């Protein structure tokens, strides 16, 4: 089986690996070849949707479930709707140049609503990605022209995949 990799906000490559006992962990933070897992999922119970995670020195219980059509992550003390999170990163308009739209979690492209050369306004829907069994509408970060669409409907994507690149609108 192949290990998964994805790119968090810091830009470094992170490997999701499977260990001999079947658990999963993330390693390779900060580019160091440390084998100490930063995050490890020990058990997942499909029926109750329980997840036991070891995070650094803490052990945490989580539940992942769907509520009223939205994916929710909850834990003792709180919960969060996952689709209220921004699934993309690096889309800020810094130094006058628009960064490419990237995915920060694995997903599948459900629909692409724009094509190369299109002029888009801020918040205009660009692409629909299914992640965590939820559809997520990704929108234009600012007024821009589509330089290239790098993915197509039906593509299964890894975290860190570049979806769309932009160029200045004028």
């Amino acid at each position, binding site marked *: *089986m192949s290990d*998964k990799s*994805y790119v*968090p*906000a*810091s830009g470094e490559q*992170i490997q*999701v690996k*499977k260990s001999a006992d*079947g*658990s*999963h962990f*993330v390693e390779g933070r900060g580019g160091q070849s440390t084998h100490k897992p*930063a*995050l490890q*999922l020990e*058990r*997942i*119970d*499909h029926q*109750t*949707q*329980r*997840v036991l*995670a070891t*995070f*650094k020195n*803490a052990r*945490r*219980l*989580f*539940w*992942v*479930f769907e*509520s*009223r059509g939205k994916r*929710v*992550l*909850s*834990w*003792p*003390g*709180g*919960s*969060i*709707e*996952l689709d*209220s*999170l921004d699934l993309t990163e690096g889309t800020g308009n810094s130094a006058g140049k628009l960064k490419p739209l990237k995915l*920060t*979690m*694995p*997903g599948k492209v459900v629909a692409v609503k724009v094509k190369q050369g299109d002029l888009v306004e801020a918040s205009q829907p660009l692409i629909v990605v299914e*992640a*965590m069994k939820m559809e997520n509408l990704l929108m234009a970060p600012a007024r821009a022209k589509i330089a290239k669409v790098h993915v197509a409907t039906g593509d299964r994507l890894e*975290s860190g995949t570049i979806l769309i690149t932009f160029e200045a609108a004028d």
Partner: protein
Amino acid sequence: MTPVYLHASGVTLPFKKVLIANRGEIAVRVIRAAKELGLKTVAVYSEADKNSPHALLADEAVHIGEAEAKKSYLAPEKIMAACKATGADALHPGFGFLSENAEFARTCAKNEITFIGPSPEAMDLMGDKLSARAAMKKAGVPIVPGSDGALKDLAEAKKVAKEIGFPIILKAAAGGGGKGMRVAQNDRELENFFETVQREALNFFNDGSVFLERYAQNPHHIEVQILADSHGNVCHLFERECSVQRRHQKVIEEAPAPFLIGHDEIREKLFQVAVQGAKRIGYVNAGTMEFVMDGERNFYFLEMNTRIQVEHPVTEMITGIDIVKEQILIAGGHKLSFTQQELKANGHAIECRLYAENPHTFLPSPGPVKELLLPGGPFVRVDAAMLPGQTIPLEYDPMIAKLCAWGRSRQESMNRMARALGETGVAGCLTNIEFLRRALAHQVFRGGNYTTGFIEAEKKALADPAALPPGIETEEEFRELIALLASSEAKVPLASEPAPWRTTHV
């Protein structure tokens, strides 16, 4: 002569089987008190409550109809039929539903069923806001400045409004539950709303009488718990503050009132006035006098609730008195089991209402409660309305549980409550746990001087969707977790070994 039964608890009462005409955590609460007194208990349940804890806990349970409250918990004839079928000779109405319906109390009496609550006359008197105002005024209880009796027409409304000053609130005399109420800031708004409120009053409450009161912007909500027996003894069980509200609904309650800490003279005056009000109307059983209090700690009578209240546990925690048990004993003709001098307010208690709701919009979000992790430990009380595996019915209040924490000081009770909330987990639906934790940690709440405007004013801080799970410090770490959860390979089926944590207790 009415029969008297000696129960295994050592208590004698003129009834032996109590039917609880309610559901959820209050039905469970009443069943507990009745069982401790050695009484037999009967639950009634609707189609939606087949697996609800109250139906499973009572000695007998009677299915009384469809999920819609009008066809079950609000249908007097169905509840009377359940009494007949089981031979229940007493009835506790809980709160909401038929608890403040004087006609229902009369029906019980006609059928020789002891209604555990005040007399129908007291319910009538305090149920109508105008007669309640008049009665309290006569009893020397300060009332909110407003019209004496129903307003004849708009001209009179304008005249009274001018006298007491804007903003004013127009209210339906027979109203309640936030319906038939409008705030007017000026003459123009008063003109606009007058007929609307009249119409609402007629449509919702079958009585077009409308009156107006001065409207206090963001007051404190302070209430006094009363217990009175049929021998003329009236005691107060100190006060509660319920100023953490949204959409006129209480979310966090405390006893004693943090706003009155260090103001014992005002507290004593409040208690004296509340007891006097209850005495003058000959009130019997448990009741609550609600007051609004302004920033200068002037207080005015708002209304009297002629029933047990949701937030009664905080009073029980500071007094050590089982209010529901006292209600049953009072209904059985007993004297209060304590005197005013014997009552002491000991320490501090806080209650948080755990709801299945969207923590950002406050809209109900009922669904399945797949897992329910409830807190424990010393001086933490949980009154749960749900069992794990149950689905929260759409038809009723989406409450999951009431969580209470007692401490020797307010500080200790806040810290304990925060600790307890951190242990509380629900899988299957959205809850307000996070919201409660933030409210409790908010400096305005911790400071103890918060008004009914607190949630609205601090909405942004309290409903922040960007909170991270404990132990996860950065968004980057959080994304790692989510990515890991999302990767399909991570879904390793659990082997045969059992889960190492416990999930149930009610």
